[in-house]
């Protein structure tokens, strides 16, 4: 018997007398809108920076977030102008290692956890783009902010690769004291586009 068949047979034997329907309770949570202020606060908790701006201020906010004289890469389909940025034309890892910063958008953001999720399509780019450069500037629209993790899961397409980012890379491996900045980008700037006064998402003009 192949390993496959043997394992499957062993599984069947193991549960043969135990099979029963299991009632899985649904996640019984009220639908809540993503709290943009909470998102901003929670991102800041991870010692990432958050800048809020109206749609017309995005270009300036990005420029301000980028280090001076930075070499910057942007993915295909980036909807915001990033002057001087190099478009990603299949840059090698080594080339990206020599690049200071990357600017992208995101697919969804999570208020409760201060997380941004990229699914690496247009505006977000290949996974390596947001991994190797040391600075990641991510533009998030207020209407992309959802309440909590379950709502984010439901908005994402499992066929796409996704990267969930909650602050800059960090480790607690040394005496469980948290150190920010290990292998991923050590600096994360979130540019949050939308009104700052808690107006419901979608009201952004």
């Amino acid at each position, binding site marked *: 018997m192949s390993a496959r068949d043997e394992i*499957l047979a062993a599984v069947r034997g193991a549960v043969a007398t135990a099979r029963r329907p299991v009632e899985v309770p649904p996640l019984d949570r009220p639908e809540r809108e993503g709290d943009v202020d909470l998102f901003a606060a929670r991102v800041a908790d991870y010692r990432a920076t958050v800048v809020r701006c109206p749609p017309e201020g995005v270009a300036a906010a990005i420029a301000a977030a980028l280090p001076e004289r930075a070499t910057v890469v942007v993915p295909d389909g980036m909807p915001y102008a990033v002057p001087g940025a190099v478009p990603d034309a299949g840059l090698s890892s080594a080339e990206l290692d020599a690049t200071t910063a990357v600017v992208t958008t995101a697919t969804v953001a999570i208020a409760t956890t201060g997380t941004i999720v990229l699914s690496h399509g247009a505006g977000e780019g290949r996974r390596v783009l947001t991994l190797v450069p040391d600075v990641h500037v991510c533009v998030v629209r207020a209407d992309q902010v959802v309440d909590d993790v379950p709502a984010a899961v439901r908005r994402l397409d499992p066929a796409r690769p*996704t990267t969930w980012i909650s602050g800059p890379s960090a480790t607690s491996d040394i005496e469980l004291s948290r150190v920010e900045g290990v292998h991923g980008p050590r600096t994360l700037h979130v540019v949050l586009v939308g009104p700052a006064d808690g107006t419901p998402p979608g009201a952004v003009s």
Partner: protein
Amino acid sequence: MSRTFVGMPPFPTAARAALADTQLRANLAHATTTIRAKRAAVVAELDDWEALRLRAAAIKDDVLLHLDEHLVRLEESLTARGAVVHWARTAEEASEVVAQVARAHGVDEVVKVKSMATQEVELNEHLAAQGISAWETDLAELIVQLGDDLPSHILVPAIHRNRAEIRAIFEREMARVGRPAPADLTDDPVRLAEAARLHLREKFLRAKVGVSGANFAVADSGTLVVVESEGNGRMCLTLPEVLVSVVGIEKVVPTWTELDVFLTLLPRSSTGERMNPYTSTWSGVTPGDGPQEVHVVLLDNGRTRALADEVGRQALRCIRCSACLNVCPVYERTGGHAYGSVYPGPIGAILNPLLKGVGHDEQTDSLPYASSLCGACFEACPVRIDIPSVLVDLRAQVVDAHRSGVPKPEALAMRAAAAAFGSGGRLAAAEQASGLAGRALDALSSLTRRGRRAGGRRLVGRLPGPGAAWTDARDLPVPPRESFRAWWKRTDGGTR
């Protein structure tokens, strides 16, 4: 760099040595106290924590009871998404798949994401025997690997090391296997993390083959999930051309949607964060993005044995968060090495016997007894594994496995107790004897003038034989002259 847990002594012996290591005790007490407080704070933030636990446990139970169907689905989805699926019955088979992939690409090194499954199968040792170096890239794993040490925690394998020890290891060992530690390295954790970043970056950038595990495997979308903090996982999952993931067959989640509860429970339970810094999900091959050759090894290695265990089956719900280790008063004092396995702590005390079976070796048989059954683990477990009940059941299995041989003194004592406790009358007689013994001890201790009293009763200072295990460190009162039962009878329940 090939130390394994093979030949570890039984828990009580290993624990005795660990308990005497004051540095270890201090490191562990500090680390577990820190993480407990963090976990408690973020768990308290969610008002439906118990509902989340119940949902997670039910999802996993459902998966386990229909695991064959889910595995077949997972295989189909993975294959449809361009991944190559392998099945491994044993540790050797799993390691050999990875070795074959490495050989096929002519590489002599692979980069690894921290993964319990690959540790369990001793992949690094298997690869080393074929001249292939497996570089651990998680900071704690790097510390363990460079220090030729053994992991002592699921999540933070170097939890037993403090910053000064880590600095010494980096200074001594990094140069041997790659970029040396900076000359001016201090024991500031920021500087130590920086040293690891520089040391590993060259390995990430040149590696052709990456090796990972997975926290979850989604059956209907063929998605694997890796939850991490440092970004070394993303590096290994993204930069190499080839990726091999070794995944225990119990890691299945039926659909993508069900990740909702697991991605909520896991970070809060493990690192005590609302969310871990990085989570990566991928489904087979994504053209133009990340590894273009993707292998998935579905690993049994004792899991079907555990699945057949009626009480112990629930251990396969485990999501390796390590909350049970962090809250365990035994683990806090002995650390992980005493458990003699890559799976230490309360989950290790049940998982190892379940995966390996009991009655074969003394070390494994000692694990179900490595607990005071205080229940802190059950309370913390995000998937509600009733670890104390499984421990008690495994103890019965250990005893049953030895019933045919020559009975140990403990078994004889239990039989004698069973006989005495089988009837109130027989017990009364036994108590009378102990009352007599008490009087004798009483008289004796007053003769030696070493006798001490507390609350009006004499104390037994030292007992010989097995009783010494008690009186080595604890006093014991001399049995009273009259048992409760005798008092009740004499006084008619205190009315005379």
